[in-house]
């Protein structure tokens, strides 16, 4: 394949009558990555996924999956993608195994191969107990697994899941999440979700969308870099403040009196810095007492809220 990139999207735009859902979007996803697509409702996640899965074309720009153009080689791309749309639509009147077999045949698998694959995904998704039940009578968790099994049945290189854990109870979410993690070993996965802990746990990279554009693309760890260091030190307020101001890389400093002789210092740091060793050295040199030294990382939620806040809206925390 071309350069090992699974998805290459450049300058993608999709306009509906009156609105622009995706606006000059560009990103890449490498093979074997599990990438989370985050954003508010209406940020363009579903539209992006629909374009990638060849359900509808973009207004302009290009999207490639495994080096193939999604407009020109739509059939070949569809063969390589397993897509589970939002709300996981299924044929309610079919039985689980029957449905999976139907889907496998529809995706061009031979009779014997589809039997083999259906057996495999039924086992993989834990559907053995319900394989003869009618889909309409299954619980939501099982239906979600049927949707996943359908996305997997033709062994796609790329799996696109639009909100796979929406409406599930915590136990079900955990098992679906586990399944997605396992998929990452053999497939490239692109999931969209609102549930942030899910992203932290499963995704190797995060794309945050806003207004049809990517506003951040990085690993969860990198996004959470920087943050604050909190230290409680017993020292004269004036000396402490001066010493702290001498440290480099501090963007914001506040020192407040805590109980007793202790002062509580909160240092907001520039990206990628950790001043805890320096603070410890400082305390040792001056002979002060230290009772707390901790780094507070911003949660992914804080970052998400900060990045996706509409312009003009004030932070209310």
């Amino acid at each position, binding site marked *: 394949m071309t350069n090992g990139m699974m998805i290459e999207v450049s300058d993608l735009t999709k306009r*509906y*009558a009156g609105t622009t859902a995706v606006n000059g979007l560009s990103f890449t996803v490498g093979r074997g990555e599990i990438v989370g697509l985050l954003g508010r409702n209406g940020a363009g996640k579903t539209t992006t996924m*629909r374009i990638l*899965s*060849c*359900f*509808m*074309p973009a207004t302009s720009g290009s999207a490639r999956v495994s080096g193939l153009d999604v407009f020109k080689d739509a*059939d*070949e791309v*569809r*063969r390589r*993608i397993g*897509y*589970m*749309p*939002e*709300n996981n*639509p*299924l*044929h*309610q*009147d*079919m039985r689980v195994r029957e449905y999976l077999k*139907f*889907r496998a*045949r*529809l*995706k*061009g698998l031979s009779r014997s191969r589809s039997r083999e694959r259906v057996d495999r995904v039924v086992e993989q998704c834990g559907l053995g107990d319900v394989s003869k039940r009618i889909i309409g009578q299954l619980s939501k968790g099982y239906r979600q697994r049927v949707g996943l099994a*359908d996305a997997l049945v033709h062994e796609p290189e790329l799996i696109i899941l639009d909100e796979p854990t929406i409406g599930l109870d915590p136990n079900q979410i955990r098992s679906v999440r586990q399944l997605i993690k396992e998929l990452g070993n053999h497939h490239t996965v692109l999931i969209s979700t609102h549930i942030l802990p899910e992203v932290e746990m499963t995704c190797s990279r995060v794309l945050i969308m806003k207004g049809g554009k990517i506003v951040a693309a990085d690993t969860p760890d990198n996004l959470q870099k920087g943050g604050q260091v909190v230290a409680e030190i017993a020292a004269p307020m004036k000396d402490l403040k001066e010493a702290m101001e001498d440290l480099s890389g501090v963007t914001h400093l506040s020192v407040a009196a805590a109980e007793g002789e202790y002062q509580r210092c909160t240092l907001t740091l520039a990206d990628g810095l950790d001043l805890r060793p320096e603070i410890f050295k400082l305390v040792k040199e001056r002979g002060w007492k230290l009772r707390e030294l901790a780094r507070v990382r911003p949660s992914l939620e804080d970052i998400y809220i900060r990045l996706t806040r509409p312009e003009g809206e004030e932070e209310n925390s």
Partner: protein
Amino acid sequence: MQAYLTLTRRELGSFFVSWIGYVVIAGSIFLMGLSFVSLLETLQNEATPMPVAEIFLESYYFWLILLFSAPVITMRLFSLEKYSGTFETLMTTPVGDLEVVLAKFTAAMFFYAATWLPLLAFILLLRPFASNASMVDTGAIGSAFLGIFLIGTLYMAMGCFASSLTQSQIVAAMISFALGIGLFIVSYLSESLPLQKSWANDLLACASMKVHMQDFARGMVDTRYIVFYLSLSAFFLFLTYRVVESRRWK
């Protein structure tokens, strides 16, 4: 081809796992039964030179069955998939738009043909009692069934088109019913118009399905009629195809 066959089988199967399929079959058989009763009464009263197929098609039961069953058979083909969202999963598999349209149409055609099979039993039942073999002529029955099939092709194609337009099965049924009734009424228009020669009159006469069916029932297979039904069906299927494709233009 594999996708087409798979899809046709699934569509046909879904007629038999939902109540709709059985309601249509039951309703059709009920009306056919009534028509059989009236047919027997006609035969009892006086001698008639008409073959039985023609007597049957002369009655309104045939049109009643056609006009009501066609919208019900076709209403869910596309609209249900659009409503439930399975249209999206279907269209993201490597299946062409045309294959989807043809598969759904084929399945509807098979089901439609199946609903008419009991009629064959009625006719065969009459055969031993016919005084005159030409009354139950195989050729005439064959061409009557050909007519039923051809007219069904057109009504199924119209139903597919109506269903592809909307997410609501009721709306789809109403649209295809309106189209079906509209086309049927043309037969009466051409009858009620004054008998002067005009191109409009000629055109209406050509589109008179009542006349077509009469001829088919008499054992006359006119190629003009075949062309009429097949080309109109192809036209409606083409429209359906364009509607399915239209999601790409929006």
